[in-house]
């Protein structure tokens, strides 16, 4: 094993430089400890992002695909989705999945932390909204969040920047919601509507999910990381962690990783923090087997890799006679509706869903999706059908709360490996009965909104397959070591110097995009670590 000279012991070792890894690294810089982050991917450059070229749509199906199995970069690891109706999507590099995320940035609601109390299902969280509130606000400031204060579906909050323009798509849909007397609000977005902290504002390019050439989208490579690095954090790219090692006292003492040349290295650390996301983290824990933890590290509960939650999504697309300029503006950040977010007594399911209004696609995607759905033919008739749809659509993505179920898992694939020979994750997942009812309810309600908004044609998608954006629950928090992997501040019950800060620790999924909450939790955990530095391992 190669103990390179720059592998001097560090105080804190963070694995993964995505949404949560960046936040925790920045927050811990106060401590003046030696902090190192190992990231398997590279830095990306805004001048390489697809929207710099005319072929940007085609690039979204290749090197900038959201699906790592399609991208197939050296820095990716393959994921076996065969036993799941939903494919995991991600990005592996500095910024993690925020490089490709849509930046729709709602917080979980206060009730999301108390689902057992409210609805008698799953479990309450060991933290609540009020505790996280200051961390949400700090994260909004650090990331640069645009939004409008006063949403009656939340306790008071003040986004640092004014909302993004909702455009013709947002206004048309808003009129539909108003007609029905249903809630809607401009989305909180991790996209800057005005120049902010040296970054220029969003240019309404449209396709946020292939990287933002303008830098208006708040990915952590351009928000947290520059500040963390200036404050002394070392970020080492192209370093893929294989396993966390233990000393004789049962404490984590470092990691074994592969550097960019494929050399096996050992990095010693006093504290290890996992931030590899809800699939990457259980994968590495399960791969870190020892005599003490034959089923994977920190897994005495048997829950590492279990309770995987996505947000199953159904989509209702409306076609409108008038032009909506649908291709302009951030695809996923427009308006949302929380009308069916909380449990309704008149419904046949518990919990609820967020209706996220999504703008339209570029011409190539419009044409290919039209081909797949049979709405835009090739041959004679193409132009007429295309003209009717392109820039004339708005969609509602019903993002449903997924309740935890132990049968939904991340395990190690017995055969598939990444380029370093580390076992790939295998996803085993089924959409629950409760989620199915919610998805169907969303389709019916979505149709009502579209009709109220004046859509002339409505197209439904029951379940979106490439929708494994949100990876949650696979190393859940809790107070009881028998039913959870980490405690209320992200520390492993079993290994007292091992922390987890990514989406794995979610107890329930809520019905909104999770990144705002993931990062608020990471800041909260970092802060709690700082407050407990003297007796961190007690």
């Amino acid at each position, binding site marked *: 094993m190669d103990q390179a000279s720059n592998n001097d012991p560090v105080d804190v070792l963070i694995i993964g430089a995505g949404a949560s890894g960046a936040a925790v690294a920045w927050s811990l810089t106060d401590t003046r400890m030696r902090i190192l982050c190992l990231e398997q991917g590279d830095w990306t450059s805004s001048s390489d992002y697809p929207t710099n070229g005319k072929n940007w749509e085609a690039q979204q199906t290749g090197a900038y695909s959201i699906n790592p199995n399609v991208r197939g970069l050296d820095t990716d690891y393959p994921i076996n989705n065969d036993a799941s109706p939903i494919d995991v999507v991600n990005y592996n590099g500095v910024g993690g999945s925020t490089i490709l995320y849509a930046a729709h940035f709602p917080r979980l609601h206060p009730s999301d932390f108390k689902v057992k109390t409210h609805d008698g299902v799953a479990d309450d969280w060991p933290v609540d909204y009020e505790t996280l509130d200051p961390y949400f606000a700090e994260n909004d400031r650090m990331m640069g969040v645009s939004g409008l204060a006063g949403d009656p579906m939340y306790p008071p909050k003040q986004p640092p920047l004014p909302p993004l323009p909702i455009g013709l798509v947002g*206004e048309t849909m808003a009129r539909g919601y108003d007609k029905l007397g249903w809630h809607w609000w401009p989305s909180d977005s991790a996209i800057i509507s005005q120049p902010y902290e040296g970054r220029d504002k969003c240019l309404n390019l449209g396709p946020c999910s292939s990287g933002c*050439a303008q830098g208006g989208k708040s990915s952590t490579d351009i928000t947290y990381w520059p500040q963390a690095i200036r404050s002394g954090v070392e970020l080492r790219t192209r370093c893929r962690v294989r396993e966390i090692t233990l000393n004789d006292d049962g404490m984590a003492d470092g990691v074994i990783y592969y550097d960019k040349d494929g050399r096996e290295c050992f990095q010693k650390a006093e504290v290890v923090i996992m931030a590899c996301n809800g699939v990457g983290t259980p994968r590495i824990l399960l791969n870190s087997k020892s005599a003490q933890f034959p089923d994977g590290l920190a897994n005495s509960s048997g829950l590492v890799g279990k309770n995987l939650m996505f947000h199953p999504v159904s989509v209702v697309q409306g076609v409108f006679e008038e032009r909506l300029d649908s291709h302009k503006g951030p695809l996923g950040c427009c308006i949302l509706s929380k009308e069916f977010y909380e449990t309704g007594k008149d419904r046949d399911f518990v919990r609820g869903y967020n209706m996220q209004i999504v703008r339209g696609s570029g*011409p190539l995607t419009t044409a290919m999706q039209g081909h797949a759905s049979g709405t835009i033919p090739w041959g004679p008739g193409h132009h007429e059908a295309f003209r009717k749809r392109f820039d004339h659509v708005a969609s509602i993505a019903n993002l449903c709360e997924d309740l935890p179920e132990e049968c939904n898992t991340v395990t190690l694939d017995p055969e598939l490996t990444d380029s370093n020979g580390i076992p790939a994750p295998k996803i085993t997942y089924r959409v629950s009965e409760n989620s199915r009812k919610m998805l169907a309810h969303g389709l019916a309600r979505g149709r009502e909104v579209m009709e109220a908004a004046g859509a002339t044609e409505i197209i439904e998608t029951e379940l979106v397959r490439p929708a494994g954006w949100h990876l949650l629950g696979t190393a859940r928090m809790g107070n009881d070591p028998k039913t959870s992997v980490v405690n209320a501040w992200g520390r492993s019950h079993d290994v007292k110097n091992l922390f987890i800060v990514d989406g794995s620790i979610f107890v329930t999924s809520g019905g909104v995009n999770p990144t705002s909450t993931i990062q608020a939790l990471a800041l909260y955990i970092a802060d709690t670590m700082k407050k407990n530095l003297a007796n961190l391992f007690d």
Partner: protein
Amino acid sequence: MTNDKFATDHLLSSTQQKCLSALLDTIMPAAEDGSMPSAGKMDFLGFILAQAENFMPALVQILDQLDEKFANDPLAARVARLEDFARADKKAFNRLLVRVYDCYYQDDQVRVLIGIKPGPPFPQGNTVEPGDLSLLDAVVERGQGYRR
């Protein structure tokens, strides 16, 4: 190598070229009202060589299944022929279709005709209307909607 192959800049035989032109005009004929050009008007081969070179062998394979008769057939007959192909080999047909659409909708003249700016999205960007936020008055009036 057949003797009617052109050198470097013309990788297709004259028959293949005629078939390609007919194929493109079948997949995307000009709009009946003349408002949109046909795909045959695009430099499809140039596009493939520049942006999707590894598709070239598959394209040649498709063209080799066609003949002069196809090139001279009326549109309806060509459509029927392509429908057969699409049914027989959906994957290959879709791979062709995506390239034809990609080439077509990258064309600056086409982009202007469908109402988008020529060139890449960045750094031009777009202007989006702020939208009428007074529509929120009704939402605010209904009051708090969250549970603690």
